[in-house]
């Protein structure tokens, strides 16, 4: 050991004289990347010293004190897990136990599709990872296909399919005048898309608008998809979080399944189990039969292997511990409902507060929309005023994260919104 150190010291001395100081950096032409529009909001918020500041930017749940929440069911699961199990590699497809429980949430507790093993499913790195696996899979096996993405959508959707090199098209979704769904144009776009097109659909609690199709509208969309032979890919990041009832929030998916569609689905536990940083999710692809499901799963694994080999175990263990224990599962369902109810309560409070200030505008969209986000209808300039004058942080598309609204700040927020919107 001593002689090795002496040798290495000698070499280090020599190497600094045979240096490369004269060579320029390989990276001098690298441009600074633009800040992520969503995560950049929190950075700016954190840097603001004002005591009145409010963060209604990123979609992470806060309690009525504005504090992040770790669910009790998660704490209990974690104390069960810590110290008991090893940390060996999961298989490439992840924790099968977690995946099985997760499929039940999306496809139904007693789904025949699960019993018949027709679903190819792998653990993924939360919703982002599930979408990316699917996008790469779509590129590999339908290299000439495109993805139809709603306008607007979560900004990262565009990045995901772009990096997977799948060309994007858009379909109408949000109707700015009514701050609701532009159903007629949506249906036109679905009808006019070439047969067999791939569509990205938000299963519930559309991000960023909070505008969801009604059950009737979902049935019509499903029917039209059948007529056109389109492929439906559902991004479900808010199951349980929208209405408070996971079964109800999965209605859109169940409608498509009843109609016989062979869907794809991305599921995330970031919000509904508060497991944000653990990166737990699932990608599933419904196939014709068990044989095909095995084949598709094997190919999904091939995409995961050169990306991260196998997914992280901790978050998956938390999920499977909770969902496979009836008491913990019930606790979770209660806690999800509490979170959803608080959000719904804040929507009512915000709307009422603004209306009480005598606004001449309509604010019913605040309570019509659902889930974590409210698409306020505020313009980027109005948003800038909210930030610069009132220290209220949100994304420039006017999206308010209702999770950041509390009984403590709803009055202040209502007042500020009223101020910037009445001088439109």
């Amino acid at each position: 050991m001593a002689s090795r150190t002496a040798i290495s010291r000698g070499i280090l001395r020599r190497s600094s004289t045979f240096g490369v100081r004269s060579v320029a950096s390989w990276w001098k032409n690298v441009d600074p990347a633009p800040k992520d529009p969503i995560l950049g909001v929190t950075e700016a918020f954190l840097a603001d010293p004002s005591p009145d500041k409010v963060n209604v930017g990123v979609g992470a749940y806060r309690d009525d004190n504005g504090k992040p929440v770790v669910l009790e069911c998660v704490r209990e699961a974690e104390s069960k897990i810590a110290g008991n199990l090893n940390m060996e590699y999961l298989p490439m497809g992840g924790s099968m136990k977690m995946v099985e429980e997760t499929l039940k949430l999306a496809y139904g507790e007693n789904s025949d599709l699960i019993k018949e093993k027709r679903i190819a499913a792998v653990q993924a790195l939360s919703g982002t990872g599930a979408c990316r696996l699917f996008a790469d899979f779509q590129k590999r096996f339908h290299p000439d296909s495109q993805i139809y993405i709603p306008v607007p959508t979560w900004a990262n959707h565009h990045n995901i399919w772009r990096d997977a090199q799948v060309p994007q098209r858009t379909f109408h979704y949000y109707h700015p005048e009514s701050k609701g769904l532009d159903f007629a144009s949506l249906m036109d776009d679905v009808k006019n898309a070439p047969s067999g097109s791939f569509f990205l659909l938000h299963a519930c609690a559309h991000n960023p608008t909070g505008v969801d199709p009604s059950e009737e509208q979902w049935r019509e969309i499903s029917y039209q998809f059948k007529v056109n032979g389109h492929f439906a890919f559902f991004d479900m990041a808010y199951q349980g979080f929208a209405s408070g009832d996971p079964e109800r929030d999965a209605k859109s998916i169940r409608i498509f399944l009843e109609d016989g569609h062979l869907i794809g689905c991305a599921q995330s536990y970031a919000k509904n189990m508060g497991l944000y940083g653990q990166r737990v999710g699932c990608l599933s692809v419904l196939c014709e039969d068990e044989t095909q499901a095995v084949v598709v799963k094997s190919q999904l694994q091939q995409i995961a292997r050169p990306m991260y080999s196998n997914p992280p175990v901790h978050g998956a263990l938390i999920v499977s511990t909770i969902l496979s224990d009836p008491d913990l599962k019930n606790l979770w369902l209660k806690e999800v409902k509490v979170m959803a109810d608080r959000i719904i309560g804040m929507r009512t409070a915000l709307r009422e507060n603004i209306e009480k200030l005598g606004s001449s505008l309509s604010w019913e969209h605040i309570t019509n929309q659902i889930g974590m986000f409210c698409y306020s209808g505020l313009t980027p300039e109005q948003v800038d005023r909210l930030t610069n004058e009132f220290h209220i942080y949100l994304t420039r598309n006017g999206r308010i994260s209702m999770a950041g609204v509390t009984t403590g700040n709803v009055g202040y927020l209502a007042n500020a919104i009223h101020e910037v919107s009445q001088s439109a």
Partner: protein
Amino acid sequence: MRQQFQLPGAHSSAIDRRLSALVRHLGDSSASSMESQNPNQTIYASVTASFNGDSVFSNIVRAPEDPILGVTVAFNKDPSPIKLNLGVGAYRTEEGKPLVLNVVRRAEQLIVNDRSRVKEYLPITGLADFNKFSAKLIFGADSPAIQGNRVATVQCLSGTGSLRVGAEFLARHYHQRLIYIPLPTWGNHPKIFATAGLSVKTYRYYDPATRGLNFQGLLEDLGSAPSGAVVLLHACAHNPTGVDPTLEQWEQIRQLMRSKGLLPFFDSAYQGFASGSLDADAQPVRMFVADGGECLAAQSYAKNMGLYGERVGALSIVCKTTDVASRVESQLKLVIRPMYSSPPIHGASIVATILKDRDMYNEWTVELKAMADRIISMRKQLFDALRARGTPGDWSHIIKQIGMFTFTGLNSEQVAFMTNEYHIYMTSDGRISMAGLSSKTVPHLVDAIHAAVTRVV
């Protein structure tokens, strides 16, 4: 067709084109058959109707098992009581059990019991403390690059994730999209680089005749590489061969690479695991940083902290200036965000907890050395036992090679024989994981090797 799809990345773009053409052809034929079924017909949707159309993915063929992870799959299926898994490089105790380090358990308890800790999203670049301490671990706390604030470090999903993020960055921002990898190398390397969009070539590394390093071949191949090409270097404990250059050889490699403007990309998956010393195992990386040049380094905590399934690692890019490092970091975020948004928090929290605390850090180094020492002792036992048995051949490479793996020199027929007759599971290139051996199982392995060498050629 299926066979070819698995070749290393040098061929993959051609293979992908051929496969794409095949899929398109099949896709076209199924689309036309759908159209012929009267597109104007109203489809009646009922609750009980089942969908009669084909899956859009019905033309997909099943992917072959991953050659390394597939070994464990096969092992698990085997009902034999004497089966031995020498496939995947995961450490096992003398009792053949997986090991969670005591210091890791301690760190985990601290984290779990700390009610003030939350599990919010990490920043895209990961846990800041983790990044800081990881860079110090590989480059040395007194590293001029760290002092000079010119290292961009991002938390990634273990070694695989760090390599992939680095490769994607190179494919987008580096002027040379060519990477040289040693022959042989870890099976996942070519796939990672090819998928990221780099072209992959190899440089000679292993010499089957000596079961050591083909140093001349290495120098010749790197010497004839085009200026600016990226070169993948295993920082220590080369996987799968266990053959490492000496420090003098590393110095020659460094001089050659710098003179040709070749960009080093280190894969450090075994720091501390090879010799038992974290600093000694990092010497090759530090030599390159000391000369003031740039490089990339992928780190994994899978083996040296036993955090396999938590997927903890880091990618560092050593840059010329602080300003460059900051711009590089911003671009790394653009690679990461559309892949998984931000990395998982749990494993990185454990690592940061340990690296930050002097007592825990020391405890870790002791447990790490114990693992490395057990491996070294297994090498000796296996070597001695083969010699005592009189098994034909020179087996000294077993004790000359370093790290978790031994490249036995057995061919794929011999390996298949050992699996079928002796229930010994290893990769078909003859690589065995010494971590999977114990004093109790050495005799069984010796029997198998002896039989393979004498009965199968």
